[in-house]
């Protein structure tokens, strides 16, 4: 029955709408905004700006997606970007451009540490990564003594070579492909889905659950690290010193919108692309409207709540059985 129905066209669209509701949201929003701000929304300038927004979101959100597949949470990615930049500021005069490697190396170390503490000492990941994030932020500010230091010499990272397409976008395609490869074409991906879907079942299938959880956190740190190489220049080439929870929350919204629920087991980086794209469109649409920045923040918060309520639905969750 299923093979036959997939060949017919109306069911194809129905399947898309059912399995990827975010696509529908995306199309509706694009049409809506194109009508509301015609000319402006589809202008090259705005499209480029949307792409830039997309790059920021996807590079931040691709790492934590691995951890959220397990049903855990990683908020340290902003911290890796911040403290990594500060380390880059220290190292560049000494080592030159090779010091860019500090991002992925620091990311791996940080992810490994978080994974070990989470798995071996059994601290809930949400609060653990939040604390780690705050520590990284504090260290960053201490290192640069509170000033947003400029680190020159890395402009080549974002120099345009195709008009209207931001170069970071090209980098992010490579990074996305790498992440999708890991999830789709290695056993790690299958294990992450399995652990997020049914940890006990994965254990019964002979999988060392603790080990692969640590691997997921390490991968998250690694991807946040290589993402930060691009983001560092993409977001101004200075060491960031101001901290806002909004920066943490937006990539998380992109992940949840994409279809990776907080309980894990479904979704993945390929879905996060859709989420990031949709959220960029929402954000640009809001930006083009005459709304205050505060109202936009407010709406972003509401989007977060609505998307997690929707993604927490499904499954038999009522009654005592939740316990």
């Amino acid at each position: 029955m299923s093979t036959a129905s997939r060949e017919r066209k109306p069911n194809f669209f129905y399947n898309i709408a059912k399995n990827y509701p975010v696509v529908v949201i995306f199309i509706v929003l694009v049409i809506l905004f194109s009508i509301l701000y015609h000319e402006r929304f589809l202008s090259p300038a705005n499209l480029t700006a949307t792409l830039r927004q997309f790059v920021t979101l996807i590079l931040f959100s691709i790492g934590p997606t691995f951890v959220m597949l397990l049903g855990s949470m990683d908020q340290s990615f902003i911290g890796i970007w911040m403290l990594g930049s500060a380390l880059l500021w220290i190292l560049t005069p000494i080592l030159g451009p090779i010091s860019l490697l500090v991002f992925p190396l620091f990311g791996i170390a940080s992810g490994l540490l978080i994974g070990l503490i989470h798995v071996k000492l059994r601290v809930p990941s949400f609060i653990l990564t939040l604390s780690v994030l705050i520590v990284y932020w504090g260290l960053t500010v201490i290192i640069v003594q509170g000033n947003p230091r400029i680190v020159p010499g890395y402009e080549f990272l974002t120099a345009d070579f195709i008009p209207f397409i931001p170069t970071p976008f090209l980098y992010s395609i490579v990074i996305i492909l790498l992440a999708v490869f890991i999830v789709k074409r290695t056993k790690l991906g299958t294990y992450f889905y399995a652990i997020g879907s049914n940890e006990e079942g994965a254990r019964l299938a002979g999988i060392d659950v603790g080990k692969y959880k640590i691997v997921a956190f390490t991968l998250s740190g690694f991807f946040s690290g290589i993402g930060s190489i691009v983001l560092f220049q993409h977001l101004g080439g200075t060491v960031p010193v101001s901290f806002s929870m909004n920066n943490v929350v937006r990539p998380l919204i992109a992940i949840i919108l994409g279809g990776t629920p907080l309980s894990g087991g479904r979704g993945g980086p390929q879905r996060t692309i859709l989420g990031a794209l949709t959220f960029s469109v929402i954000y640009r649409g809001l930006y083009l409207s005459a709304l205050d920045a505060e109202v936009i923040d407010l709406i972003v918060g509401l989007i977060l709540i609505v998307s997690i309520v929707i993604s927490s639905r499904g499954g038999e969750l009522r009654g005592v059985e939740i316990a």
Partner: protein
Amino acid sequence: MANEPILDVRNVYKSFGKVYALEDTSLRVYPHEIVGVVGENGAGKTTLMKTLVGVHSPDKGEWYHNGIRVPFPKDPKDAARKGISIVYQERGVVPSLQVYQFLFLGNEEKYIGKFGLQIPKMKNAAKEILDEFHIKCNIEDFMFDLPLSTQKMIEIAKAVLNIRLEQNKENADSVIILDEPTAPLNIEERNELLDEIVRLKKHSSFVFVTHIMQEVIEYMDRVIVLRDGRQVAEYDMATNKVTEKELVRMIVGKDVEEQYQSSRPKNYIEQSGNALSAINLSKNGSYYDVSFNLYKAECLGFWGSAGSGKSELIKTIAGIKGYDDGCLMIQGKKTKNRELPHTRLRKGIGYFSGETVNELFYDWPITKNISILNIEKIVTRFIHLLKFKAEKAMAAGIVEQLRIRTPNTVTAISSLSGGNKQKVTVGKWLERKPDILLLEDPTIGIDVGARDDIYKTILDMKSQGISMILVSDDPKEYSTLCDRIVLMQQGKAERTILKEQLNEVIQA
């Protein structure tokens, strides 16, 4: 079946603490046969299976392979190398994986190429195995979309595949242990699965743990009965056809006997009025069209094998599970579906099971565990502050009445023995005195002395006018506690008997 056994385990001993879970048990499995393993809960079935797949290591025992003594497996992977794999009763399925991903879960090594996993190759191998096992599903379907019986079949295929990949042989001898595979299935699914397993005999042998006697009679080639950790009987179904009654007698051990004089005359019970009644209560996949009346101060038992729907039924009455159709009335008043336990408790229905993990707060002292259910009795009148002296006195009363062995009333539950833990559970309900008390396996896993104390307390409560419903695996429990017994089979209430007739039903 004349040739060499592919699994030959002899004289296995395994103890947990001072208690022997397995004593001198042997198991032999020949190629292409299904061996049934039956026994009460706690008879040692699970321990034996876990020993075979290397989850437990035995205290003593011998394992022969082609007549040569070899060590027991260290872990499930090692067991697979020896040709043994297990399909667990539940929690083995990973819902959000696709069929082919699930089949190879944990065994991907053979399919890693230069560019990551060789997905086309995996899919082809998966398709082959699905064809071989006659499983009707698409390899790209998600596990959660498939019916339960198909999921079970895929799990069996996965177990066979696991052995083949581990031994790197296409047609390795394999023994698949099935731990109550039919428990969550309805009748049609059950028969379908069993037919498939019989067909699969040409690929593999099976050890089949079950509670359902019919399955044993109709489908098994041999059956082994375990009781109290020992093998008490073995029947070869081809030469020595055993009856269901005989099997049950071997499982239970002795004839069900009268221990306490507690039953009341039938007319007396019916005069006392209705406490609870159900009309055509149904829950899809569990029980269908169940109707009964529970009179005041009587104990009604639901007797049936696991999978007969008795456990779901009692959980429905407790408010832990919902129902799909029918009607449930408490003291003549209709209840709403989906009422949670706290609402049911307010209406007078209490539920307790022998699983103390779900009943008690292990870190808490006895006092708090008893008072949590009786908090109204120990609060001051106006602003509802707790009266700690009253709380202590309440707990002390229960400790004395039930002879709970503990240094004092503020000892944490976790340091008590199993029997005493269960006495605390009974104690909190004794203090609460609900109108109706639901008992599910009330004395599971505790020793005889504590069991007698608990029976006495429960009978006391009954004589004080509390109605009860009992669901258990132990026929002695029914004859001790119940007045009437509803016989359940495959989700249907067959008939209601007096407890004196239970012996005949089991033996007849």
